[in-house]
C-alpha cells in the first residue's frame, strides 16, 4: 500500500472517514495523515517537533508502527500539532511541516525534523539544517507555500492545538487510539512499541 502523507493541493478538510465521522477532523486543519482512512484503527499523535520525548517516541515507536501497521493498512496515523510554549522553535517547525504536508511531503519532513532535532533545536536554524534532506527545488516549494499561505498554516496549527486542549492534552506526545467506534487516550509521554503492538493486536482480534 502506498502511504500518502498530506494533501496534494493545499489545506483542506480531512476526507472520507474523518469528514463523515467528525472524530479525527480538526475542522479544516492541513491534512497530516498516513495510511488508509478505512483502517480499523486510527492513531492520533499530538506532538511538538522540538520536544525530545516526541522525537524519542517517533524514533522508537512511530517508525515501527508505520512499517508494521500503517503500511499494512491496519492503522491510520494522524499527526496533530501541539507546539508547546516552552519550545521557542516548535511553531516554526510546525509551519514548515504543514507546508510540506500541503505539498505532499509530510512523511519526509517529519522524519527530517525529528532525525535532526538536536541540530536545529539549539539555535533554531531549521531551514539550514532541514534543507539538506530535500532537493533545492523541493525546499523552495515548501518555503513558497509557507510564504503564500501563512495565515492558513497558522490557523491549521491553532485548530490542532485547540482540539488537543478540548481533549485535555497537557503534554507531548499524547496518543489517542480509535477503534470499534471508541476513542481511548493512552498514558501521556509516549508508549513503548512492544506494548502498543500488543494493544493493536488485541484490537484487531476484537
Amino acid at each position, binding site marked *: 500500500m502506498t502511504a500518502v502523507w498530506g494533501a496534494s493541493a493545499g489545506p483542506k478538510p480531512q476526507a472520507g472517514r474523518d469528514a463523515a465521522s467528525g472524530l479525527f477532523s480538526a475542522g479544516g486543519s492541513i491534512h497530516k495523515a498516513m495510511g488508509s482512512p478505512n483502517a480499523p484503527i486510527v492513531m492520533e499523535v499530538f506532538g511538538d517537533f522540538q520536544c525530545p*520525548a516526541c522525537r524519542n517516541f517517533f524514533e522508537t515507536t512511530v517508525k515501527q508502527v508505520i512499517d508494521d501497521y500503517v503500511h499494512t493498512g491496519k492503522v491510520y496515523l494522524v499527526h496533530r500539532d501541539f507546539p508547546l510554549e516552552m519550545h521557542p522553535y516548535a511553531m516554526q517547525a510546525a509551519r514548515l511541516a504543514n507546508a510540506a504536508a500541503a505539498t505532499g511531503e509530510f512523511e519526509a519532513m517529519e522524519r527530517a525534523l525529528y532525525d535532526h532535532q538536536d541540530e536545529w533545536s539549539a539555535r533554531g536554524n531549521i531551514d539550514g539544517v532541514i534543507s539538506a534532506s530535500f532537493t533545492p527545488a523541493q525546499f523552495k516549494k515548501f518555503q513558497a507555500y509557507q510564504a503564500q499561505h501563512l495565515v492558513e498554516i497558522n490557523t491549521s496549527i491553532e485548530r490542532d492545538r485547540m482540539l488537543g486542549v478540548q481533549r*485535555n492534552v*497537557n*503534554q507531548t506526545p499524547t496518543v489517542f487510539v480509535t477503534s470499534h467506534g*471508541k*476513542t*481511548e*487516550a*493512552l*498514558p*501521556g*509521554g*509516549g*508508549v*513503548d512499541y*512492544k*506494548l*502498543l503492538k*500488543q*494493544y493493536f493486536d*488485541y484490537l484487531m482480534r476484537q
Partner: protein
Amino acid sequence: MATSTISAETSARPAAWPRALLLVGRVALGIVFLVAAYTKLHFNGAWHFSDYYFFFGMAINSYNLLPLWGVEWLGRILPWFEVALGVLLISGVALRWVGIAASLLLLAFIGGMTRAYYLGLEIMCGCFGNSEKLGPLTLLRDSSLLVLALAITIGAFLIKKRGKTLSN
C-alpha cells in the same frame, strides 16, 4: 470496697480512642486503595475489565524499571491487589498483615516514583488513573499514605499486644 473495685476496672480497660482512630485510619486508607483500583479499571468514561492492563502496563512501563513480562504481570494483578487491600482494610481482617502489605506496596510505589523524579522522567504517575503527572505533590501524597499505613500497622500490633496482656 465497691469504690476501689470500680476504679481498678476503669484503669485496666483500654481507652476507646486508639481503636476509634485505627478504625478511621484503616477505613480511609481502604477507600483510597479502592479508588486507586477503580481509576485503573474505569477510565475514558467506561469500564475496562478486558483491556485495563494495556493502559496500566503502559503507565508502569514509562518508569523504565521492569522488563516487559514484569510490566504485563504487574499491570494485570495490581488493580485487583489494591481491591483486596481496600476490602481487607475496611473489614479489619488480618489488619496487622494487611497493614504490612499496604506499607510495603506504598514504599515500593514511592521508591519507583522518587527514582523517576530524580531521573527527570516526565511521566504520568499512574497512581490514580493516567491523567496525573508525576511530581512533588504526588510524592507528598503517597508519602502521607505510607505514614498512615505505618501508623495503622503499628496501631494494630499495639492493640493486639495490649489485648494479650489484659487477657493474661
